[in-house]
């Protein structure tokens, strides 16, 4: 399987993630789209890692996953606190700096 196929797939997945962030207004779904983009990057990492014949690409994927886990924990905590304050997680309605 040539490398380009994986890279094209990764690019498409990333784009879907970007479009999701642009189109959807629900904070949780936007968050899922960010995960999708991270995953697309992971796919490119692993594909290139195999094509170069060394494992460091996979090590980076592990780092990305660890950071993604940290990010999800923080992000969901923020979403929960925003929801408690404003009873909504529509990002267009959550626009004031002062709660």
């Amino acid at each position: 399987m040539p490398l380009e196929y994986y890279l094209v797939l990764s690019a498409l997945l990333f784009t879907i993630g970007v479009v999701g962030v642009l189109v959807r207004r629900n904070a949780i779904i936007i968050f899922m789209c960010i995960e999708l983009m991270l995953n697309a990057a992971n796919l490119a990492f692993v594909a290139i890692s195999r094509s170069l014949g060394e494992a460091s690409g996979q090590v980076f994927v592990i780092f990305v996953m660890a950071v993604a886990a940290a990010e999800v924990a923080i992000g969901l905590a923020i979403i929960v606190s925003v929801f408690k304050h404003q009873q909504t997680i529509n990002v267009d309605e959550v626009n004031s700096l002062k709660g």
Partner: protein
Amino acid sequence: MNPEQILFFLFGAVSLIGAIAVISFRHPIYSALSLIVTFFAQAGLFILLGAHFVAAVQVIVYAGAIMVLFLFVIMLLNLGTLSAKGAITGKLKGFAVILGILLAVEGVYIAVKGTKPGDPAVASAETATESVNTTTYSIGELLFDEYLLPFEVTSLILLAALIGVIVLVKRETQEEN
């Protein structure tokens, strides 16, 4: 078509459909489930690429922990009922989709053109499967030898996230009580 190609197109199609479903479903729970399907298809792709360890970690971390948290928060806040107008409409949406298509074309162009047949990377793509020894052992060796500092920094990030989350949510509950 050899089995690897069939599997690639199968997993690729599933992950793309799942990804599109994530942004089209109205209800967050269905979006989350589609995202899990995408993650699984990606784990399959990782196995095709010979990255078994990464595939297993993908399922453990993403499907097993992160998405459970998403579901937990969706259920806890009961988000399904109130986010009826989950998407923007009209011209803005069209604009976003056009931008997305542009980005996709750009990405595909780079992916195809950026890897010219002359590149050593592409040249070895077919033969590399044997040469790259990506067992769990070799990843562990890299992680604890060459990448020891990034590894430790990652653990610091996780610790910071842990403390941050506790502070974020604890303060809220104390104010309310």
